[in-house]
């Protein structure tokens, strides 16, 4: 893990939770969705998604099960747990508060 991805670790976890709050998805789908939603701002190795998924799972924020995709292939799907939903809500509030604060500070400087 490089310093850059360490910096992003918290953000990545939040993004994953956000995406899974919309619908259950497999790893590749999540990585595609991150790219679309962030409009290519986050250039992360796709591989670093998997440790993050494992981490969230261990914390009980998401769970996984093997399902068959629309193309008839077996894939591991992840979905949010109740704890994950609450965590996402809490993080969203915290994020808003801090980003607002940062905005205010930066705005006040000019």
């Amino acid at each position, binding site marked *: 893990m490089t310093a850059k991805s360490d910096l992003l670790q918290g953000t990545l976890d939040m993004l994953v939770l956000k995406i899974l709050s919309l619908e259950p998805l497999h790893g590749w789908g999540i990585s595609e969705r991150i790219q679309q939603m962030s409009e290519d701002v986050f250039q992360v190795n796709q591989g670093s998604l998997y440790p993050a998924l494992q981490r969230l799972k*261990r914390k009980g924020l998401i769970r996984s099960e093997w399902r068959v995709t629309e193309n008839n292939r077996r894939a591991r799907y992840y979905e949010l747990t109740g704890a994950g939903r609450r965590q996402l809500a809490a993080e969203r509030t915290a994020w808003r508060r801090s980003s607002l604060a940062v905005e205010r500070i930066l705005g006040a400087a000019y």
Partner: protein
Amino acid sequence: MAWIRTVAERLSALFRKQRREEELDDELRFHLEMEIEKNLKAGMSPAEARRAARLRFGGVEQVKEEVREERGVRPLEDLLMDLRYALRQLRGRPGFAAVAILTLALGIGANTAVFSVLNKVILSPLDYDQPERLARVYQTHEQYGAAAYVNGPSYLDFREQLDGLESVAAMYNYREFGFNLTGFGPPRWVTMLPVSSDYFDVYRVRPTLGRTFYREEERGSARIAVISNRLWRTISGEASVLGQHLLLDGDAYEVIGVLPAGFVDVVGGDVDLWVPLELQDQNATQNRGNHYLSVIARLAPGVTFDRARAELESLAASQAELYRGHVGWSAAIAPLYDDVVGDTGAMLCLLFGAAGLVLLVACVNVAGLFLARNVTRERELALRAAIGAGKFRLVRQLLTEGLVVALLGGLAGFALAYLGVRTLLPLGSDALPRVHEVSFDVRLFVFALGVTLLTVLIFGLTPALQFTKPNLDQSLRENPRTSTGGARSKRLRDGLVMCQVALAILLLIGAGLLLRSLGKLGEVDLGIRPQNVMTFEVKLGGERYDGPAGRIAFHQDFQDRLRRQPQVAAAGAISKLPVSDIYNSWTFTYLSADGEVMRHGGGADFRIVEGDLFEALDIGLVTGRLFESYDDADAPEVAIINEALEARYYEGRDPVGERIAAARVWTIVGVVRNVAHDGRGSVTPKVYLPHAQFGDDRNWAMTQVVATSMPGRDLVAIARRELAAIDPNLVVHRARSMREVTASAIAREQFAFGLLGLFAAVALALAVVGIYGVMAYNVGLRAREFGVRMAMGASAGSIRRAVLRHGLLMLGVGVVVGLLGAFALSRLLRSLLFEVSATDLTTFVAVPLALAAAALLAGYIPARRATRVDPVEVLRYE
């Protein structure tokens, strides 16, 4: 509830490891396939699509490793893997494993064994209530000795007049008393100690049954006894033992108390029963010339030794003014611990230091082994780092390997120590105080474990640190056949060998000096001829020997019977054998032949002798005559003195015909040669008195001394037969050859110095193995270089010289450092040396030579191997 899930997750992770790995594979494969499909749809070629997908994904193995780490069961799983791997590594190199484990076992074992003795004898306080307040009290004489026994009246003075002492007790352990105990099963020999009533207060021991003595009972005729827990269990084990009577040499003693199990008297020794000490007769209340009591005391609360000492010394000074017998005498008090441990402390610390050095050598050896081995593993480790193993994992892997070796070594060392202590204790029983207390305890185990872990840190971390910054690129590119292991690690290895040599020199010189001392001790002229002499004791108990006539008749009859045996040259008896310490010190007055007082107060040991004692021990006559059969109870009382007494008190006068006086007046009839009272050949003035005249003083416990060319066992059998013919109740006790007696006088030196010699031998062996290992390893690394040089025309001899030169250099530096260290440290040994200088030239020359010879041999084998390299074979690998 979260923790339940965590635990469940971790457990299931451990058990479903296989399945999880497969699922992870599937998941990542699915991801890559989807990405490739996407790329193909975007119009890439299949190869391009695959490459782009992998590029976006990153390293698959690295991702897997990170996912595994996130699972959270890693520590346990990794440890098991590391352990399996470490064991496989060790099995793959049985030679390395065996040498490393054996080396550690020796180091740890030696330390643990010595510590277990040190722990009890030196480190642990005496096993009594508030032991720091316990003291030993002596009387001291300006000429005669620093630590003499106390006379009876002085003991009573101490007990009554010293306020700084809470209680003062006397015991008559002047010699070993024994009884034949009958009435409880077969007759047995029991040891007995007459003590004052305060004895139990000083030690603060309370009887588990019954009571101890009262002060009014301090009479030799009081037939009462307190018995040890051990004796109580063997004869009875019931509370009803109180009031019962023990038959000791035919006299009935009433049992009044039983002491608790585990009570041991460190001064009086291993005792079966305690009887009241006679403190009311004339000897105890009047005779200030007879020093026969061992005195112990307990300081009053808050009193320091300095205060007690000042009080004691002022009492002794007033005694010297009041009584003629006290002229030249003073008194001393010392902590009981110091008295018991004595100079054994220095000896055991020396052994511990030596054991520490052996451990150091062992650690250095193992560190060198690991270092050398890890160079060959550099590529393997670099490869593992390259395919995704974290640095931390690599360091831990190396530490685990070190741990496995150290634990196996520690285990073997513990076993070795256990066996060692089992073997050493019987050998050391003559040499060490408190040996009966030595046992294994928790602290010992902790200590062994601590040593083991310390060892892991020392040699486990050294190689591990080398790989915290692995230069993967270079390590991978390097061909192991061409690698020389790096200049830094080579310097480290050479340094380790030099350390080993230096440490071995240090130990060998210490051992050499002490062993030479031991040799000198063995050659000391003790003043007797110990060859072909048997000794044994016969205790005269019962009515028949209550009067002097019965005792005198017994000795003369018994010795006559022995003398009649073939192969018996002489038979006699003495009240205390030579070379078994000072004993019976009296203060004499020296008179001229006319009875004029020439000198007051000059101390001497006196000995009671019977029969051909001087002949049996070959103690030569200087002037005058020996005792004759006509020196009997009706004849004028006579004495023989030794040369030391003549030299000290006679200033060139002929002592024969002059007189000496103490309890009686004796005429000196002869002067004999000196006899040592210890193994170092120390001599004090002595007076010999004939038993036929002085046997009425008391029932002397005489040791029979027989010069005979027959084996000791045969003589004892004959003695038993003759004894039975005289009195069937008498037994032969403590049969020892005179050689055993003299050997036990230097038992402590023999024990300690022998052990040190063993340590030094181990250190030498380890150093030689270390030198061999490092040189053989170096030769292996440079095989290609040698091959090339020989192909270019270098002679085998020049290569052999190059290898040996390197070995010699390491050896030379190690020897010089070791010699300097030995020179600086050997003065610490001075107090233990005997007739050998701390900078003894022979030792300082012989030891390095011996080590150099052994080391060169160890270096020559690899050097020879270096020149057997086949150039063609080596170059083919290029």
